[in-house]
């Protein structure tokens, strides 16, 4: 495009190409976006200076609110105000029945949906999947980044709980796709925290990251060495967090106050909110007053730390069991741990800190902001991944959190890739046919560490088709299970005797099908199309203006010297055409005419370049020129 503009040699036009990349922490309770600017990593605030975006989406009559505005409708309009949507990501209807005790949304019957069995929440904006609702949060964060930084987004690193299974990871990636975000990597939250901590402290050795958020719990054991963050093992619970604390407290309130009929969504939401406030207050003080006043429920009382301890101990114990297992899997003793890092809002709860300190036999590190550390680490990795730091030594090596297996005879799971194996990883498995002439076969892929299919999470059923018919048992179908660096599974199959690549139909057990995602994308594109159109029209008009100015400026300098009368007339004719149509509303015509003008000017540009270089060389010595060029190259 910049054909007309010619830089003086030694004067670099390509200033340092800094690409805008962000790290996004898509949390159960709050979300954040961070980026690296002039060497510093910062979380980005909204217009009112708030860094945390509450992960709440409210569907109003004609618009969608995200964040603080949405939060105001939480109790008033609970069925259209979706909180903690992360807990529903990649989940089936069975999981949701358990989860929903906290939230009481209305779900549509998945059987009525032909494409897939993804549960949908009924709202006034229609029946929405968790993926679509999460996409709203991501869109808000993306917009915040673009507006604050005034540049288009090259890509983002989005964090997920380390213990997220394949379906939950895929759902997160799908949400990013709907929000039109290029995902550079899905990064495990504890790993992100380790990066932020490690680069900040410069410490090396083995660390444990204890990450308890609003809805998920992770523990990762990592080895830090010369910029490499190697995850040795990870463990956790993708349905355990601060929300569960609140739920326990709300049940205690109900019991104390002897409330009846508390199943309305409004009351549930209200009690959860009061419970959360009480919990937060107890991080600072020994005792807190609770006042309940909604509909037929009135009660005042107090909650103290001892009672809180009784309520929460069973939940915190669950996290410590995961810690034990992670240590065992990492083959690391407690005494080998150099530091225990606390991450996630729920580690503000005093009992958690005490019990973790007790378990690891050391005081955990709580000085880093537990809310921001994950987004910070993600931003650091995003900066490296888009190539802003070409010489950076940083490397993150992660593992798969849950074993992958396939269903075999008798409803048993045969493990193919064991948990805590370093990723990427590939394992091949051979299958054969059991009937003469069989040309298709189904493979049921499961994730989890239990022996029985019924105790594991079903990920997908793969239909392999198109291998040549042979007698029973003769075919050798090699199925390769590949897990990529995001922890996502890719399956491929090949019949070994014939070399025929089998085609695979994937039926995800809990995810959205490709067709559904495409439809959603199309719909959101249609909404955005009008905006897009006017935007790109403006862009073309600006570009036309720029080209015209550059051409006029050049003509004044050397148009008459370098061009014949005929050539000049030709250029001026196309120039006039561009002036005539640039106010037109068709961006394509403007674009074509710009191109035409540039083509017509091609010889002129080449001549200018030559004459420019000659002039420049006259003024400089060759050596000087070479050095300039070198430093220009270094800068770019």
């Amino acid at each position, binding site marked *: 495009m910049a054909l007309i503009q010619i830089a003086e040699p030694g004067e670099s036009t390509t200033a340092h190409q800094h690409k805008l990349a962000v790290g996004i922490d898509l949390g159960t309770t709050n979300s954040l976006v961070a980026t690296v600017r002039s060497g510093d990593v910062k979380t980005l605030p909204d217009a009112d200076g708030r860094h945390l975006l509450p992960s709440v989406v409210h569907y109003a009559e004609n618009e969608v609110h995200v964040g603080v505005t949405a939060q105001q409708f939480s109790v008033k309009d609970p069925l259209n105000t979706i909180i903690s949507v992360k807990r529903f990501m990649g989940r089936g209807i069975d999981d949701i029945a358990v989860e929903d005790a906290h939230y009481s949304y209305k779900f549509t019957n998945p059987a009525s949906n032909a494409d897939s069995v993804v549960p949908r929440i009924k709202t006034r904006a229609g029946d929405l999947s968790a993926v679509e609702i999460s996409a709203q949060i991501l869109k808000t964060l993306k917009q915040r980044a673009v507006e604050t930084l005034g540049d288009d987004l090259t890509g983002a690193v989005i964090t997920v709980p380390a213990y997220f299974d394949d379906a939950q990871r895929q759902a997160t990636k799908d949400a990013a796709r709907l929000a039109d975000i290029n995902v*550079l*990597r899905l990064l495990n939250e504890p790993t992100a925290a380790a990066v932020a901590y490690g680069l900040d402290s410069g410490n090396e050795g083995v660390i444990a990251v204890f990450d308890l958020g609003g809805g998920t719990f992770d523990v990762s054991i990592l080895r830090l*060495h*010369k910029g*490499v963050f190697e995850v040795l093992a990870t463990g956790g619970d993708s349905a355990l967090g601060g929300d569960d604390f609140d739920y326990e407290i709300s049940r205690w309130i109900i019991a104390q106050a002897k409330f009846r009929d508390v199943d309305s969504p409004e009351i549930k939401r209200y009690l959860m909110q009061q419970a959360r406030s009480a919990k937060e207050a107890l991080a600072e003080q020994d005792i807190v007053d609770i006042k309940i006043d909604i509909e037929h429920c009135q009660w005042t009382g107090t909650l103290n730390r001892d009672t809180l301890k009784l309520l929460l101990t069973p939940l915190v*114990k669950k996290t*410590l*069991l995961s810690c*034990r*297992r992670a240590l*065992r899997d990492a083959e690391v003793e407690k005494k080998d741990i150099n530091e225990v890092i606390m991450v996630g809002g729920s580690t503000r709860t005093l009992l958690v800190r005490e019990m973790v300190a007790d378990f690891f036999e050391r005081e955990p590190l709580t000085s880093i902001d537990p809310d921001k550390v994950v987004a910070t680490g993600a931003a650091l*990795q995003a900066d*490296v*991944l*888009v*190539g802003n730091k070409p010489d950076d*030594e940083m*490397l*993150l*090596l992660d593992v798969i959190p849950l074993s992958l297996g396939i269903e075999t005879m008798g409803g048993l799971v045969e493990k193919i890739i064991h948990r805590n*194996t*370093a*990723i*990427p*990883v*590939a394992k091949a498995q051979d299958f054969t046919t059991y009937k003469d002439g069989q040309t298709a076969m189904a493979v049921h892929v499961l994730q989890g560490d239990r022996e029985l299919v019924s105790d594991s999470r079903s990920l997908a059923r793969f239909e392999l088709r198109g291998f040549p018919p042979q007698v029973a048992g003769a075919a050798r179908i090699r199925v390769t299970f*590949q897990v*990529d*660096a995001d922890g996502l599974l890719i399956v491929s199959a090949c019949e070994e005797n014939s070399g025929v690549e089998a085609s695979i139909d994937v039926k995800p057990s809990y995810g959205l099908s490709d067709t559904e995602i495409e439809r959603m994308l199309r719909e959101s594109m249609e909404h955005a199309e009008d905006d897009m159109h006017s935007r790109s029209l403006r862009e073309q008009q600006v570009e036309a203006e720029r080209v015209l100015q550059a051409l006029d400026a050049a003509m004044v300098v050397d148009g008459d010297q370098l061009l014949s009368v005929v050539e000049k007339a030709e250029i001026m004719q196309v120039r006039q055409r561009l002036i005539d149509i640039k106010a037109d509303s068709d961006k394509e015509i403007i674009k074509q005419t710009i191109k035409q003008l540039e083509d017509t000017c091609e010889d002129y540009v080449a001549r200018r370049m030559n004459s420019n270089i000659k002039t420049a060389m006259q003024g400089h010595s060759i050596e000087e020129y070479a050095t300039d060029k070198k430093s220009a190259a270094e800068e770019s």
Partner: protein
Amino acid sequence: MSEEILTSNFFQLFGLPVSYDVDLDQIQQQYMLLQKQFHPDKFANASDQAKRLSMQQTSWINEAQTTLKDPVLRASYLLKLNGVDFNFENETTKDVAFLMQQLEMREKLENIKNEPESLEILDDLAKELKVSASVLMEGFVKSFEVNNMDDAREWIRKLQFMQKAKMEITKLTADIEDELMR
């Protein structure tokens, strides 16, 4: 060294002589060097083809590391390099005395949950197992060195039992400890 990664053997890949004895520190160091060169994060801006290749290469490097670090996997990989394709699922020893021993061990493990000192017993069993495994390992190395692949294969068949028993003990210990924590 890019495409060749996928065709070189694990020992070559890690700069080690083809031998049962390996230097674990060397494995770790070489692992880091290879990862720094081939990990998909180093190809985040590359073409889809380059990304795919890097994923395959890193998968291969990871498999190599796992194989070299684990004594039994390493031993069976040595057999494989010598043309003996060891089949973990379908091979078993026919040494009756050995099988009897294993059966006894199994029975002990099955009843252990009811024992009062179960964790201590499991610890002892783990130690015993370690000793017998190292005897079998020595047997393997000797047979392998004199190129007696049939005997070497038999040693691995037996070692396989040890490996499974070890996993069983670890799992039982974990279960009992978890139970105690609740």
